[in-house]
Every structure is written in C-alpha cells, then in structure tokens.
C-alpha cells in the first residue's frame, strides 16, 4: 500500500492500479502526442479529409474519366449531369447520353441530354487508357460508362467555357494544387529552420540582422509583390518551369513564419537546464542542437509547417486565378476558377465555382489538422 501511495506529483508516472495510468507511465513522447491528437475530433476529421485529397492527387488518372484537355467548343458550359441511380426499381445507375441538335433560334449545334437512351454507369470500369504513375499502363477508372465513350457521355460536374469536363479537370487540379503546397512548404521549412535556428541559437548580431529581415519581409504586402515577380517570368517557360518558379516565389516570403517559430523555440530551449547540462558534460554544439534541442520542438515544427500550407494553397490559387500564376495548359484550382471571373457567366453556370469548394475544404482540413497537432504537442499552449 505504501508503495502505491508514494508517487511523485511531478511526473506522469503514477503507479496506481488503473491500467490507463500505467500506460501513460511508459508511453513515449510520440505516443502521448498521438493520444492527445486522437481526442481532437476535428483534427482527426481534417486528417482523414486530407488523406482522401492526396489519394485523389496520386490517383488522379483513376478518378478522372476523360482527358482533361479534351475540349469541344460546342459542349461548352453544360450543366452538371444527374446520375440516375435506379432503373425501374433496380440499382443500375445510368446517365442520359448527349445528342447533338440544332438550336432552333441560333442554328448552332448544341448538345442536349437524350432522355430516351440510357447509358449504364459502371464503377471501377474500363475507360480511356492512361499511364499510372507515369509508366504502368492501366485503363480502370472510378467511374466509367458501358458501351459508349466517356468523353461524349459523362459530365458529372458540367463543362467549362471550352467544353472540357470539369470533374476530370478537378481531379487533375487537385493533384497540382495539393503538391505545389508541399514543395513550397518544404522550401520554406528548410529556409525557416536554418535561418530561424541560426538566429535563435547564436543570438547577437546575427540574430538582430535576421530578425530585421524577417520584420521587413512581414511588413510588405505580399500579393502585389508576388504578382510582380510572377509577371516578370518569361511567358514562354514550360509548365514545369513555371510550377517551380511559382513555388520558389511563394516560399521566399513564406519562410518567415516558420523561422519565427524555430527561433522562439531555440531561444526558450537555450535557457533550459538540460542544455547547460549537456554543455557541461562536453557535448559538441552540433550534438547539443540535433540530439538534445531539436527533438523537443520537432512536433511544433510539424504543427507550424502544417499550418503554413493553407496559406500557400490560397496564394497559388489567387495567383493562378489572376492569370499570373500557373497558366493553361497547366491545371490547378486557381486556373479552373479563372472561368468564374465573369459574374454574368457565373450566374448562368454556377458549377464553375465547384473548385472553390475544394479549396475551402482543403484549407479547413489543413487548419484543423495543424491545430490538432499543435494542441497535442504542447498542452500548455
């Protein structure tokens, strides 16, 4: 009995006959963080959503059903199609194919749904061939039609002004927009950790100089600057070159937030007793930094990085929306939203706004997940 009662208040090592308490006693730091994170329902929800997004990004060819660049002017601005799920009582999803007719007033060729015919919809069916991951030939798609060409039949989210299927374009756009965020944040992370770390650990003049630079960068309105830099890029650059150039431009200013977090952590950790203990034992500076200090705040860095991504996604979307970021034939959410610039067109074709929904959900998900990580990593925040 005496052993049971004599437990220290300070550490979480309670040896009581309660199983949960015992588990806490031997849990590692990462396990503790994971358990706290799990309790945060919104954060877990956000993570699930993000995983779904990245699955789409990876398997965009599978989720799409036509070539996103295939356009046909006469199919432009068609409304989203309904999938009819039940065919005379049985679960047999189908869509009405399109048939071309002449509009009696303008004599232009238009496409309207042919309600007499039914084209069965198959999930995980065969469709247009593609190269999965760039080299594995495949032809299964999430949604496919039997006995007809998908490019003439399926328009689940309608078409844009050029007659391109929005659903497929959205899938590919997800791939671009979600990955540009990652590349950009990786760059910001490297810059932020190095500069923030140097600033925080060494202090003195180096710190002051870097601090001033950060303050200056933070007080400049970013969008005009990005616009200027992006517009200055030669317009004959390839899509890939543009992609990376935009990435670099965005991360050149985005690193300041991460640097601030890293610097703050280094400064508060420098004064911890365990750092002094390591110095007194004779550890080299590098060892102290990487073995002793960095593990204490890795989780904070992860949180800050996760929270930095939404801003990057919004920046890229904004720039592309303006026509200064990624440009066609590149496909991203911002590029898709360019079509929505015209209010009159938007009112007639509100489905052009669907990419906005993707942006909002992605940003929300990142914010929730990042908040969850941050709260789980530091219970005193």
């Amino acid at each position, binding site marked *: *009995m*005496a052993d049971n009662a004599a*437990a220290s208040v300070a550490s979480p090592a309670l040896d009581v006959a309660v199983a949960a308490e015992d588990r806490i006693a031997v849990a590692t730091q990462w396990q503790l963080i994971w358990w706290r994170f799990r309790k945060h329902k919104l954060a877990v929800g956000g993570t699930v959503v993000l995983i779904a997004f990245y699955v789409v990004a990876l398997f965009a060819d599978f989720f799409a059903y036509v070539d996103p660049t295939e356009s046909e002017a006469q199919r432009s601005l068609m409304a989203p199609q309904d999938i009819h799920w039940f065919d005379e009582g049985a679960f047999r999803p189908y869509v009405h194919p399109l048939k071309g007719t002449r509009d009696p007033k303008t004599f232009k060729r238009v496409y309207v749904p042919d309600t007499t015919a039914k084209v069965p919809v198959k999930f995980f069916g065969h469709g247009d061939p593609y190269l999965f991951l760039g080299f594995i030939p495949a032809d299964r798609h999430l949604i496919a039609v039997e006995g007809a060409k998908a490019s003439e039949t399926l328009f689940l989210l309608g078409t844009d002004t050029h007659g391109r299927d929005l659903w497929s374009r959205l899938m590919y756009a997800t791939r671009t927009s979600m990955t540009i965020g990652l590349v950009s944040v990786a760059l910001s992370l490297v810059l932020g950790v190095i500069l923030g770390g140097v600033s925080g650990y060494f202090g003195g003049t180096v710190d002051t100089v870097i601090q001033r630079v950060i303050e200056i960068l933070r007080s400049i309105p970013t969008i005009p600057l990005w616009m200027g830099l992006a517009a200055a890029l030669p317009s004959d650059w390839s899509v890939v070159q543009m992609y990376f150039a935009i990435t670099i431009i965005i991360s050149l200013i985005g690193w300041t937030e991460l640097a601030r977090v890293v610097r703050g952590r280094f400064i508060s950790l420098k004064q911890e007793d365990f750092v002094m203990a390591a110095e007194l034992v004779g550890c080299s500076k590098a060892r102290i930094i990487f073995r002793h200090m960095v593990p204490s705040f890795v989780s904070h860095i992860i949180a800050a990085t996760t929270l930095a991504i939404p801003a990057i996604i919004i920046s890229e979307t904004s720039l592309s929306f303006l026509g200064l970021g990624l440009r066609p034939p590149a496909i991203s959410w911002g590029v898709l939203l360019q079509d929505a610039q015209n209010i009159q067109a938007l009112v007639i074709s509100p489905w052009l706004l669907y990419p906005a929904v993707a942006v909002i959900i992605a940003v929300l998900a990142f914010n929730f997940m990042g908040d969850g990580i941050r709260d789980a990593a530091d219970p005193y925040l």
Partner: protein
Amino acid sequence: MRPIPTFDKPLLSVRNLRTSFFQDEGTTKAVDGASFDVEPRKTLAIVGESGCGKSVTAQSILRIVDRPGRIVDGEIILTRADGSQTDLVKLDANGAEMRSIRGGEIGLVFQEPMTSFSPVHTIGAQLVEAIRLHNDVSKQEARRLGIEALRSVGIPKPERRIDEYSFELSGGLRQRAMIAVALSCDPRLLIADEPTTALDVTTQAQILDLLRTLQRERGMAIMLITHNLGVVAEMADDVVVMYLGRVVEQGSVDAIFHDPKHPYTKALLQSIPSIESVPKQKLPTISGSIPHPFNRPRGCPFHPRCVSAMPGRCDTADPTLCEIGDGRKASCFLYS
C-alpha cells in the same frame, strides 16, 4: 481608525469546508473537510506543504475560487460589525453583499508582489478604485486617503509613488503597496497568503514587522498562510496544520511548537534545521512525497508516510478532528 467591535463569537468560523476542482481527468478534492476559527485581533497561521489546500481555503473564504473549482460543502460563518452572522457559502459570489465583504471587511494580501498589480495601471488607480468601491467618497478624497494608506505602510514619498506603475517599485515596496490596498478599507480580517515568500530575508522581516504594527494599531485579525515555520513562530497566536485538504492539528503556537501531537506536525518540526542540532548528522525528512491528488490513499491521508501508522486502523478509517484537551485539536487515531 474606528475601533473594531468584538463579540463573544469567533470572527470567522470555517466548518467542514469542502472545495473540489472538477476536470476532465478527474476530481481533485483540494479542501476536504477543513474546520477552524479565527479569533478577533489575533493571528491564526495556516501551515502546510505546497498543495495541502491552504490557498484554496483562502480563496474559498473570499469566494474567488477559479473555475473549475467549486465549494461543495461546509459553512464559512463571518461575524459582522453589528454582531450578526453570515454564512459566506450561501451568498452569491458575484453579488453585492459578498463584494462589499470582499475588500471591505476581509482583505487579501497575495504572495506575488511582481504580478499582483496590473502592469498597465498605476498603483494609485488601483488603490483609489478599491477605496471608492467600499466608501462613498469623491476622487480627490479617495486619492488623499490613498496617499495616507501608502504612508501608513511605510512607503516614502507616497504622493509621488501613487502615480507610478508597479514595475517602477522594488519588491518590498510593491508588497507594502499591496498591503496598503488590502487595508485601505479597514478590513476586520486580513488574509495574507504567503506574503513574504517571494521576498528576500531582510525585506521579509520588515514586512512582518509592518503587519504586526498594523494589526496592533487597527485591532484586526490576521489569517496568515505560510509554509515557513519560522514566520509562524514569530507572528502567530494560533496555528492550524493542514495536510491534503484537511486540518490535522490545531492549537496555540506555544503548544504546537513545544508539544506537537500529530505525527505530521512532529515530523515537520523535526525537519527544520536548527542551530542546536548535532553537526554532520542527516537532516530528518518525511519519507515519501505528497500523493497525487487523483490518487488519495484510503483511510488517513498521512498514513503512508507516518512513522506511527497503525496497520488495520489507519489505512481503513478516516480520523476526524477532535478535542484533545486544552483547546487543542488533532485528527489522529493515536488520540481518538
């Protein structure tokens, strides 16, 4: 200074107070059945280790217990200026009556002179506010009273200091200012929660002197909360020893120091380094440490660390506070 009326009854009577904190992880019984009396014009010291519930007791009396804490049981009976008695537990914590008692009849001096004042208001602003809360005076009059109050606690040049900010004063001066604010409305009871813990030894002595002087001049009672037995010996008339939210012993200061009854009190007194102790001998300590609040031992809360624990009795039943003669009380099976 108006004479403080006294009656036959104790100024403040705490009966079976229970205050608990309700959190997701569990319920902490910070105060678990504390009972004691504060006599008028006398000083009662409440002693105990950190976490024994002393501060929460003071907060409960003033009804300023922070969420998620709540008084769950007990009575706190205050004898008012006209002899009537009010149970503070039954009052609305934010109601007008409790607020007039708080600061008006009962004053509080806190442990942290550094952070007890708002960093963005002058001392004077906070002092004048306290005065005008409990007295119907004009701003100029309140300011005059405030300067007098600062002078009475020994702050030099009070007419200048009153317009300064707390960070412009030294620790000792800040604590004096704190006392001035607490006393500005002539309370009948001053609760001092570790008033000298954050100060250096010289300033400590000065502040204690000041408290004693003020007590004599005004005839007020002091409830002194501390873990420093030296301060207790100097200031207290009566002593209450607390452990894990309960009163384990109560008596006059002489009785407690020269003839402690409860094993915990005995162990505490033994662990004070003394000038008379034999050199090179190990300083006696109390074995074990304070149990985690979610993990209270069954039976007597002290028994796991008690040298006189009686297995079979102390680990199954809860001792209650009972009289053991001479106005002394102890909560131990050795005496009941």
